[in-house]
């Protein structure tokens, strides 16, 4: 494999990983606050269709991306009202949100099937973007790719170093203690859920505006579910989410390249399983290794908060 083709492979991997990274990072923050939102797929679809529709209608991809984040947050708000205000079961509500998102996005997007859109502009810096190998990789991406990486750093810093981040984690680890020392558990969780929705929306927008610039029903094709698995895979740590997203994207892409290069002597179906096998393997290693039990799931994950007073 020449250096140029390696660059091309890496470019493709970045494309495959970015939507997963957005959605998983958002879900990580949501889960850190103690809320399990299984509606990622639905929120991604909402973001994908609204981002696409707004970009096509207004001609501005910036507005489109913004609207996608809002659409994801809007779906998440609905989830918040049901699970946080009304204390409905989070698992059931999350599943419903996914199903609802599939239907709603199909309805909303029915007029946009088969409509082309201009993809998100890619960064172009004279001199730098034309560099061999590093040019397109480092200086030739679109804004969402850079944003996804900045977001990882920001979330990592926020959760670990900032005061609001610590409050968020406290709420996720022990909602009653946080409540008893005066923090508004529900408000913190709303914020986390809305952030998760906005990020899933951005992941969806990346799909419909950059990765495959079009709208088609259910175009997320299960990426929301993979993102959910990535959060566990990363044991709720932002940088590991990034590692997981790129690893997962990498294995998916490499098996396609391997097939094109004549295969590795194993059936194509087995190669398609590889990313999932890798996930299961890593999860098993994490769960059974010497650091056993240190999966670090937030203690209050999935439990509705009902203050006794």
């Amino acid at each position: 494999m020449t250096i140029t083709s390696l660059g091309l492979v890496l470019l493709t991997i970045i494309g495959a990983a970015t939507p997963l990274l957005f959605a998983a990072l958002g879900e990580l923050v949501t889960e850190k606050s103690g809320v399990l939102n299984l509606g990622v797929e639905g929120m991604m679809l909402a973001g994908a269709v609204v981002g696409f529709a707004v970009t096509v209608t207004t001609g501005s991809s910036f507005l489109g991306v913004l609207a996608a984040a809002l659409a994801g947050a809007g779906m998440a708000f609905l989830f918040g009202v049901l699970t946080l205000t009304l204390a409905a079961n989070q698992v059931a509500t999350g599943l419903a949100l996914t199903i609802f998102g599939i239907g709603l996005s199909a309805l909303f997007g029915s007029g946009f099937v088969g409509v082309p859109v201009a993809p998100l502009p890619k960064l172009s810096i004279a001199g730098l973007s034309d560099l061999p190998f590093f040019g397109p990789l480092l200086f030739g991406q679109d804004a969402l790719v850079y944003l996804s990486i900045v977001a990882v750093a920001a979330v990592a810093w926020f959760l670990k170093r900032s005061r609001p981040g610590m409050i968020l984690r406290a709420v996720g680890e022990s909602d009653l203690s946080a409540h008893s020392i005066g923090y508004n558990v529900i408000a913190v969780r709303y914020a986390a859920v809305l952030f998760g929705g906005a990020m899933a929306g951005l992941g969806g927008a990346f799909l419909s505006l950059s990765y495959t610039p079009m709208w088609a029903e259910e175009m997320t094709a299960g990426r929301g579910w993979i993102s959910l698995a990535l959060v566990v895979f990363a044991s709720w740590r932002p940088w590991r989410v990034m590692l997981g997203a790129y690893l997962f994207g990498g294995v998916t892409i490499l098996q396609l390249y391997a097939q094109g290069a004549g295969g590795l002597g194993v059936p194509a179906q087995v190669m398609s399983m590889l990313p999932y096998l890798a996930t299961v393997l890593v999860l098993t290693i994490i769960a059974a290794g010497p650091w056993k039990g240190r999966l670090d799931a937030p203690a209050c994950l999935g439990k509705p908060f009902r203050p006794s007073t």
Partner: protein
Amino acid sequence: MNDSMNRRDFVLGTAAVAGALTLAGRRVLAAEPTKIGFVYVGPVGDYGWTHGHDVARKAVEAAYGDKVKTTFVENVAEGPDAERVIRQLATSGNKLIFTTSFGFMESTLRVAKQFPNVMFEHATGYKTAPNVSIYNARFYEGRAICGTIAGHMTKSGIVGYIGSFPIPEVVMGINSFTLAAQKIRPDIKVKVVWANSWYDPGKEGDAAKALIDQGADIMCQHTDSPAPLQTAEARGIHGFGQASDMKAFAPNAQLTAIMDEWSRYYVQRTKDVMDGTWKSQSVWQGLKEGMVGMAPYGVAVPADVRKAANATRDGIVAGTLHPFTGPIKNQAGEVKVADGQTMSDGDLSKMDWYVAGVEA
């Protein structure tokens, strides 16, 4: 999960409609529209396979207006779910039911046995019954035209082919394409990458990137989304659309597209049911009957290539050219079809080997 939701809505909805109709039916006898049901495996907005069937459903409505009433259920999983949906359509008074995916075969047959007065049309299957017809299109004929064009247009001699699943329908298409391309360019290589999905735009696009990075300068697909063609457009190579004219996604890249043209057949079969002349049959129609159509040639196709492609099409329509005419060798170099022989429809529908030149 979306299946179950659609199905639940549908069951509730049809229960209500059925109730209303039985009440209404006692009063109005004459002007009852003929009810026709459609079962789809994917979403109508897929811009591929299911979209094509839904276009034909609308054509039936357009042709007969108030005289027909169509109902469709989308996203029906192949398997036991399908049987419930088909039975529901039969009990709610549909006289003709189109089940548009291979995996609905057994379900269709079981329900058909219980409803001898309801006619069924099953796409791409191989089992008939007195009230079950089967129909399929000879897509491989369209693939031969694509192969002819690819043979002329490729510079690298490498074609990328994105497959869904290695079933006879797909294998046949790959072989037909390769054989036609080899007539122009004997050394052509067709690299196949399996997406293991009929529909995953992201993965299809990635497969296209992988193939282009490995030297392919023509992209062919047997998956349903326009993503591979879009990738071809972005990378400045050419390709073929699948199921619909995908020119909007790849104005420069699309050379032509194979189009599923079910409308004429659906309108005809609806008429047969309304006239009471419907009979069970098994049809496999192609370019000649208009069940397979080709999108207009793209801007990149030069005049001499258009001429060659037209010659392939005309030969197939006239019956003078069969895409599977020997000598045909498999990948191991064994002669599978002798010189001058053509493959029978039966052998084609079971095809499980690749011709020489295919890398799969």
